[in-house]
């Protein structure tokens, strides 16, 4: 009897004191629940339409399906950006070709001179004009890498409060509180190492490489090769250092998606200079990628990739142009000019590797942080 009365009272309570329940909208979630003040100041340029996009805009577009993040959609976007970039660099191709033609023209004239010294000096002037074009383009590439790295760092610092608030809301703040300082500190340290040490070493290396070919004898060949090796190993060292930090995070997940890990490793392995090192990091992160359940994490990663996509493609196209021009000019130009062009291509690909390492550091940091959700 008592039980029946209690049941009747319980049902009466539910019937009489009923309220409507509402779910939070995406806007409420983005604007009220999370600390988004810092990240809203960061913008990425959407690569196709060219419009500026904030992080909350990116989240809304992903949730509404306006941004296609399928494999085909991503491939289409990359193709469009690549073709736009190639078209915009046509003027640069012409400059390099004209400078190479001038040097070939002068070389042919100088071969007919009995005394080579004056002709050699005039070739020297032509070569300097070519070097000016190459170094101007390289300076733009270097500024692009510095700017992009700084923006990625600023974005990461702005995003971390928002992610931390999500992780703490999920009740797993203890683990995140331990990992966050380590990952964040390592990422910022490595970024500073790249911008303060690696990039100046690369600048010195390419300067010496260009100056080396002014003379036929190449007095600085070994020195420029040494600097190139140093910059390559510094970059690989920073990637290995970050790998060591990742390995501090012990994997408790029993299953690793082998297919995804191998595919990611193969794709990342193609990146110049650091591909083989970062490929192993991709396996670790692929194991965690299945834990990316939140659209916010996906939006953050996509936002970071959009920020770095255009600079990476610009550098790829620039490096490809140098290599292609060297290949086509080989029959008509002197060996020094061809080696200078080819070396400029190698250094441009190294800049691309630098930007990729900066980007990968932060993407992997976000994935690890979000894996606590």
């Amino acid at each position, binding site marked *: 009897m008592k039980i029946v009365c209690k049941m009747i009272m319980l049902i009466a309570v539910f019937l009489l004191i009923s309220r409507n329940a509402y779910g939070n909208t995406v806007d409420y979630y983005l604007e009220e629940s999370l600390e988004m003040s810092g990240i809203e100041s960061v913008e990425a340029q959407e690569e196709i339409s060219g419009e500026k996009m904030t992080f909350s805009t990116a989240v809304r577009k992903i949730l509404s399906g306006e941004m296609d993040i399928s494999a085909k959609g991503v491939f289409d976007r990359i193709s469009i950006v690549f073709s736009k970039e190639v078209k915009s660099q046509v003027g640069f191709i012409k400059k390099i070709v004209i400078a190479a033609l001038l040097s070939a023209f002068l070389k042919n004239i100088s071969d007919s*001179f009995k005394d080579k010294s004056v002709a050699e000096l005039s070739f020297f002037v032509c070569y300097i004009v070519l070097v*000016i074009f190459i170094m101007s383009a390289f300076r733009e590439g270097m500024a692009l890498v510095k700017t992009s790295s700084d923006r990625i760092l600023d974005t990461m610092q702005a995003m971390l409060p928002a992610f931390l608030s999500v992780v703490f809301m999920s009740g797993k703040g203890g683990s995140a509180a331990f990992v966050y300082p380590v990952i964040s500190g390592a990422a910022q340290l490595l970024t500073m190492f790249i911008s303060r040490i690696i990039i100046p070493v690369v600048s010195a290396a390419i*300067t010496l490489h260009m100056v080396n070919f002014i003379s036929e004898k190449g007095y600085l060949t070994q020195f420029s090769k040494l600097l190139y090796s140093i910059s390559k190993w510094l970059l690989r060292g920073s990637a290995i250092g970050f790998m060591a930090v990742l390995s501090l995070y012990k994997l408790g997940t029993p299953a690793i998606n082998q297919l995804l890990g191998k595919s990611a490793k193969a794709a990342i392995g193609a990146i110049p200079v650091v591909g083989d090192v970062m490929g192993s990091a991709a396996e670790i992160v692929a194991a965690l990628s299945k834990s990316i359940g939140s659209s916010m994490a996906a939006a953050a990663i996509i936002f970071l990739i959009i920020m770095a996509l255009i600079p990476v493609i610009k550098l790829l196209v620039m490096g490809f142009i140098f290599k292609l021009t060297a290949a086509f000019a080989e029959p008509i130009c002197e060996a020094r000019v061809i080696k200078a062009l080819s070396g400029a291509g190698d250094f441009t690909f190294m800049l691309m590797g630098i930007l990729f390492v900066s980007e990968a550091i932060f993407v992997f940091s976000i994935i690890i942080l979000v894996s606590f959700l």
Partner: protein
Amino acid sequence: MDIIKVSAVGITAVFLSAAIKKDSPHFSLLLGLAAGIIIIFIIAEPIKDVFYVLYELSRESGVNSAYLAIVIKVIGIAYISEFAVQLSNDAGETSIAGKIELAGKILIMAVSAPIIVSLTDIVLGLF
């Protein structure tokens, strides 16, 4: 065709020079100088066409015309000084030839100074 004219002038000058060299070596030298000048005048028009094409290409690609002007001046200085050096060597005046060569090198460096300054600015801008 221009090459026929150039060859005709050159061969004629060679024969005439060979004929008068023994008796009047200085006239032989003058003959060589005159033949060289005539040849330069003959090829002036084709060279102008080549430089015009280079100028148009550089204008379309956005290359600074100052660079092209400097390179053309350098080519001109190189060729003229080489011409004078060879003439001096033919006359047996190797010391004068050396001076002309030195002058040519100095003038090339002077004309190309803006290019070297531009290169220095760009390299320093990397660091």
